[in-house]
């Protein structure tokens, strides 16, 4: 431990330069940057897969890809976006912001932090590389359901190992975040004074520690079924494929909150800043976050209403799922109440935050509709579900990530992001997002199944519309890339408090944040 501490006894940055600086760095800001760059690269890779899917679905019939490859694309799009883009992006935010927000000099375990990040690129190579092995990548769907996942070629094994590695990385990152938040806060920074982003990440980190090992166990069982002669899931040997679904969703449902709770945290930082009012109902926000996390362990089987569950089970999971709408509603109302009579301005972070509230709430409502067992049995595995989870994951998690990026870019780069470009990015994203995914509600209600490369003729018009929207949305993200590159290169100098209404310790250090901050812990009030 002495070695860990001595790393940070230095003053300004010195040490290896060039590429070795990034490989050996233990600085939370460097590691945060690497996480963000990595997740953006994965976001673009997953986006290319999504656009290939939409190109195939532009017209009925098979034009662009073979059906087997289409199945690989839908599977890998999900895996890459969930494990490669959204989750590492939030860890990147946590790395940059949490130490600065609580007045710590760095994360608790700086070496482990470095290791957490550098596990990701090999895992990504395994995942993407599996496209090029005989049989191609896994095509079992991102949920990797048995029996398909027990039968796939070696691409499946590569995906399993990638999930093991990414899971290990997530668990180490989560442990680091919990220890940092619980033990490294500046004097006077009590738990209930912490910025909400830290609170949501603390709870998310506990969720990660609780469920990532369960996923690791599930894919280990798949691996054992494939190669070591066990029969956990293969019906032939007395196993049960439905059991895989139970174990997977025991992980999978908390996982969706892992991807949205940090987004709630980012939004809870941004809305008060640009409303120039303190957050309405801080304590209720903390309790709502904790309730969502606890409830998330008792709703998993709502993904499985069509597996032949007894009616009592369906009712339990239906009501438990609907209960989650209560704390989520508390959050949405608190954000709206924060804006109420505030002196609001609409810079790009605020635009994305308000856009988030609007579009995420729509995704939340379709979630409630899917929670109703008799309706879910109708829309199970249709495009209605695809529309629902893209409304919460793209317009939810991703919009919050964009909001957070525009919000903290001045702190990271020392320059204000170009407001005009940011606004163009927001409006393009919002419009094209809805053009892409809103028609999918109608497609799903009309019965178009998901994960199929071809469709009946009556679905043609909405699919063409969705494909046009998807290409618009994909290209809009290049605007974001341009905005970030422009901001890194130069622009209006940012003050320490880059946004007029911004509160919090991170705005007391200069912009750009020096390599080492809070070597001497600040005293909070």
């Amino acid at each position, binding site marked *: 431990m002495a070695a860990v501490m001595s790393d940070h006894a230095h003053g300004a940055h010195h040490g290896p330069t060039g590429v070795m600086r990034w490989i050996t760095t233990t600085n939370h800001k460097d590691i945060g940057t690497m996480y963000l760059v990595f997740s953006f690269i994965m976001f673009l890779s997953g986006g290319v897969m999504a656009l290939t899917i939409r190109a195939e679905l532009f017209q009925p019939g098979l034009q662009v890809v073979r059906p087997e490859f289409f199945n690989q694309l839908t599977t890998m799009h999900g895996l890459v976006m969930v494990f490669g883009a959204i989750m590492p992006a939030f860890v990147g935010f946590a790395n940059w912001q949490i130490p600065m927000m609580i007045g710590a000099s760095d994360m608790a375990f700086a070496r482990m932090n470095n290791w957490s990040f550098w596990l990701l690129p090999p895992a990504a190579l395994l995942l993407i590389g599996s496209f090029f092995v005989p049989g191609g990548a896994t095509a079992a769907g991102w949920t990797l359901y048995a029996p398909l996942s027990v039968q796939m070629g070696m691409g499946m094994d590569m995906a399993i190992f990638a999930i093991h590695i990414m899971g290990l990385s997530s668990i180490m990152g989560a442990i680091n975040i919990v220890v940092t938040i619980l033990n490294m806060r500046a004097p006077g920074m009590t738990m209930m004074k912490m910025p909400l982003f830290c609170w949501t990440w603390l709870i998310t980190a506990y969720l990660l520690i609780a469920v990532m090992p369960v996923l690791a166990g599930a894919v280990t069982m798949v691996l054992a079924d494939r190669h070591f002669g066990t029969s956990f899931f293969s019906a*032939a040997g*007395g196993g049960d494929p439905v059991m895989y679904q139970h174990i997977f969703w025991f992980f999978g449902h908390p996982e969706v909150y892992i991807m949205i709770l940090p987004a709630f945290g980012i939004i809870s930082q941004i809305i008060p800043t640009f409303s120039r009012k303190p957050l309405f109902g801080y304590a209720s926000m903390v309790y709502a976050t904790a309730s969502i996390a606890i409830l998330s362990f008792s709703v998993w089987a709502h993904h499985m209403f069509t597996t032949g569950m007894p009616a009592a089970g369906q009712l339990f999971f239906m009501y438990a799922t609907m209960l989650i709408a209560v704390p989520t509603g508390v959050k949405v109302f608190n954000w709206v109440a924060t804006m109420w009579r505030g002196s609001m301005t609409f810079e790009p972070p605020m635009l994305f935050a308000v856009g988030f509230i609007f579009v995420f709430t729509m995704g939340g409502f379709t979630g409630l509709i899917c929670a109703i067992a008799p309706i879910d049995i109708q829309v199970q595995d249709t495009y209605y579900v695809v529309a629902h989870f893209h409304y919460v994951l793209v317009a939810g998690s991703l919009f919050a990530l964009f909001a957070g990026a525009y919000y903290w870019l001045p702190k990271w780069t020392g320059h204000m992001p170009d407001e005009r470009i940011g606004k163009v990015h927001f409006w393009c994203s919002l419009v094209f997002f809805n053009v892409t995914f809103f028609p999918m509600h109608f497609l799903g209600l009309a019965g178009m199944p998901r994960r199929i490369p071809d469709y009946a003729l009556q679905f043609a018009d909405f699919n063409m519309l969705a494909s046009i929207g998807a290409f618009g949305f994909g290209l809009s993200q290049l605007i974001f890339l341009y905005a970030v590159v422009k901001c890194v290169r130069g622009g209006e100098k940012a003050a320490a408090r880059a946004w007029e209404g911004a509160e919090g310790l991170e705005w007391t250090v200069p912009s750009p944040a020096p390599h080492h901050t809070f070597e001497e812990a600040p005293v909070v009030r």
Partner: protein
Amino acid sequence: MSAQTRIAAENRRLLVRLAVAAVVMFGFGFLLVPFYEKICEVTGINNLLKPDAAANTQVDLTRTVTIQFDANIHDLPWQFRPLQTEIKVHPGELATVAYEVTNTRSEPVTGQAVPSYGPQLAGQHFRKLECFCFAKQTLAAGERRTMPVAFVVDPGLPADVKIITLSYTFFEIAGRRVAGDGAGGRS
């Protein structure tokens, strides 16, 4: 410095606790397997390997249901066929049919049959009192075996179901072949 050492020690303690929690949750994932099986057993869901209870019911002579029989093998060197393609029964009436299975390989092979029904909803009204699917079947090299299925169609069967298809698929018990010819888990 002593404050720093104290914090570092505190951090280490928390790290160990959280790491133990992660390992425990990894084990918990595997614990879900017996837990799941116990729940299925207690609630009676998924009792593929147990005979159904024969309810004391009246034979409903006013209705006749056609039962069709189907046999499949999945990746298994066996021949498997029903000895009759269809029979007609009254709901509530006990019927017995036979399937014949032959091992064409020159070594013993173990398989398990899994039943399914068409229409799916007929499954809950189809009570098997005796079935070869309740146990693994090991056939010696070249062995031929005739196996009975005794069943009652529950009179609660909806009136619009006139034909039920009972379909069996024999699977080789996974893992046997891995050691045998090294074909691995690929199907």
